[in-house]
């Protein structure tokens, strides 16, 4: 079947199997390999993308279901080659070690800050509870999200 959707601001149309996973369409058909697969079962959050602004596991979404919807992946965060403020804070504050969980965490954080501009630490932790990280212990990630929120306020 033919799938049309908006991915990272651009209209796309690709031929997909009806039961293809969104993550495979993004990575293989569209070449958007920033979205990672860590478990293929919705447990690790490495494949988190936003559909109509909501964070979902792209490994658990049938590509067919995003017909006509707006998808945002990690590749869609930077503007004109400049990292966005969440990405910058992740880099600066040590929220990135091996980096495999990073794209998914950035997407969860993006969805959170769009919904709750000034989240508490507990709200941040809840929003990223579905994103596993083995390297950082999460603290630097939570701090980076807080700092990005603070910086948005300062502007």
């Amino acid at each position: 079947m033919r799938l049309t959707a908006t991915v990272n601001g651009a209209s796309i149309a690709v031929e997909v199997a009806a039961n293809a996973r969104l993550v495979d369409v993004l990575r293989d058909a569209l070449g958007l390999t920033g979205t990672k697969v860590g478990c293929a079962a919705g447990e690790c959050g490495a494949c988190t993308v936003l559909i109509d602004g909501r964070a979902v596991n792209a490994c658990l979404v049938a590509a067919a279901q995003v017909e006509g919807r707006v998808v945002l992946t990690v590749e869609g965060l930077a503007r004109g080659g400049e990292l966005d403020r969440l990405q910058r804070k992740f880099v600066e504050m040590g929220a990135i070690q091996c980096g495999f969980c990073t794209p998914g965490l950035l997407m969860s954080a993006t969805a959170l800050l769009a919904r709750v501009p000034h989240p508490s630490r507990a709200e941040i932790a809840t929003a990223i509870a579905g994103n596993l990280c083995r390297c950082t212990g999460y603290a630097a990630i939570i701090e980076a999200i807080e700092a990005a929120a603070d910086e948005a306020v300062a502007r």
Partner: protein
Amino acid sequence: MINSQSRHPLSRNRQSLGTKSLDDYDPGIVTGFKYVGGRYPASDAVRKAGGDLAFGSDMRFSGMVHAALLLSPHAHARILRIDAARARAVPEVLGVYSHFDAPATPYCRYRITPGQAGCVDDEPLFASTARFAGDRVAAVVATTRAAARAAVRAIDVEYEPLPAVLSAEAALAPSAPRIHPSGNLLHEYCVEFADPGADPADGVTIESTVSTQMLHHAALEPHLCFAEYDSAGKLTIWSPCQSVYGARTVVADLLGLPYHRVRVIKIPMGGSFGGKQEFILEPVTAYLAMRTRRPVSLILERDECIRATTVRPAQRSWLRSRVGRDGRLLSVEVDTLLAAGAYAGSSPDYAEAMAHKLTRLYRMPSYRHRGRVAYTTTPVAGGMRGWGAPDIATCAEVHLDQVAARLGIDPVALRLRNLVEPGDVDPVGGRGVGDARVRECLRRGAARFDWARRAACAPGHGRWRRGVGVACGAHKNGMLSDSFPDSTTMTLKMNEDGTLDLNAALHEVGAGSAVTLTTIIAEELDVAPERISTREADSESSPFDFGCFGSRMTYVGGAGARKLAAALKERLIANAASLLGLPIDLLSADCGRVSAPPSDGRSLEFAAIVRHARMRDGRDMIVTQTYSGKSNPGSYSVQFAEVEVDTWTGLARVTDFLSVVDIGRAINRLMVEGQCRGAVQAGVGSALCEEVILDEAGRTPGGGFKNYHLINAVDMPPVDVLLVEHDGDDGPFGAKSVGEIAFVPTAAAIVNAVNRALGTVLADLPLTPERILAALDGMAAVATVRTTCA
């Protein structure tokens, strides 16, 4: 929080002390360092944030085909027949391979160098007898991954089931079925020391048995490997590994290729924690590439990673201490039984490493550690962060809390009575422990954690109980020993604009080792770190290095980088001396220039010296240095945990944590802190909930992370980090290792806190809700009986 200013990610950012967890001093002021002690993101962090760094699963090769493995569903079974007709009928399938057509030559997945001691060649490419549920039975190569996986499901195998052997105890029982022809006792060792002049003071004897469980490393990136065998007979392997030279050794020896015809390229790695230290997928992927003459991609599923790669071994240790009434250790005996799983891997060395930790941590006049390693029909055990040190620290520190309780001595006081002092010599290894600051870690940590007050608090009587626990740990710095001369070779080249290229066999595991080295070179040469490039290991072009493990990256690799930079500086000064016509000893190098004395006033930019060398003198500005390790001091950590236990559901939560590390000198504070905090995530999991579970048939439950529980953000305690820095050893600018030691005492501190909260003597990890409730229920039953009798 102090908000960090927006800068180039690699620029110095010392003002942005992102958390309150650091000692509140600025190393730049205290030590005069320009770059060392700053806060630098990992060198590839920008690309990781942008999503454009290609990990293995993101790589695409022209003509690439996909492999999938058929893994044994049985823990132990003879493979009688493999019918692959239905699999071969899948149109996309190129081939199906098994022991019926692959070489039977056994290899050791742990080997780094030819002739390496402690390696047992017992693992075949494909099993003829499956020795664990997860053993490789066959592989399919197809043009799509889905087809390869579908074809694997279409292979019919006839197995003759054999009895499963699921624990080391069962394996060593006289009637146990043999897993390998050599027998089930894989390795046995005894490490002993007794000071004949020791005071035979009278004391009490305390015994404990403590067990630690099989753990999954749980790197978020699943295991994978790529290989291509070209028409000229050269094999290239792309792998997120920890040693390109080791992978080369194992694959070339197995497949009968000369070493220069096997090129191994280290690709970005989504975490390892030791899980990618051994060569699990490289041999089979290389074999499939040779058979198909196509670039082969092999990517495992999460469940396959859990059961078919490597696990931290399950071990049980019995400990007996004789302790003076004052709490002084008089003798310690340990007997360890460790399950290697189906193949030897690193288990013999791993187990023996456990015997070399306690005498680096505590003074004791007499020590005896006996260990046995048994084959079992369980997932293959291998190295994991800390390499035996967390295992033995858990046993010893849980035991010591029992000693403290028996003697009525505070756990901190008991440890202070026994910990080593700087300059002590480890009686077992015969080497100095170096500038061991573990006592300072304990004293300062106890003050910072407010131990005395918190330990005096009653746990409470209600549903929720609180307790605090402490534990100490010792580890090492590199692999230098009487039988192993640790060394590394690196090349540094300066370009005509004064920038630098470092060529070292780097294996970035996510801990920022590349930026550690550039920071060290930057400090030594006084060049901004962002002007130094690094690349990852490539066995064809990188100078030799053993690999990234053994807590050697900073202590040995960093020292090598400093020596290298010093040699380049010497070369720059020598060239400048001839250009300026001045004696070498009048010149100094800083801020990117070589300068004559102020009276002379002349100076030359590094860039100009390089240009002169290349364009006028026909010389170059490149140095290669081999650094040999001089010492292997102890790394130390003392950790404090507070837990809250729900005595009705058995759920324990860690509510506060302090990690104190004797680090010598933090090169990159941001990453050091990240290592310390990240270690707690794995430590909490290993104390409370992580375990690779096997059913009675030896099978894992499946379900991936649904049944292997990692600590998520909600269950992480706040983690305070205190670094003790004395730069007293031979590391670069005094630095010692951190990544492994930071994980060593974590689980023990948590277990001790739970036991203190509940009055239990729980000693089998993990402390699941079942175990906690069973222990409380047992105590309640005892209490009821007592009440009834009274």
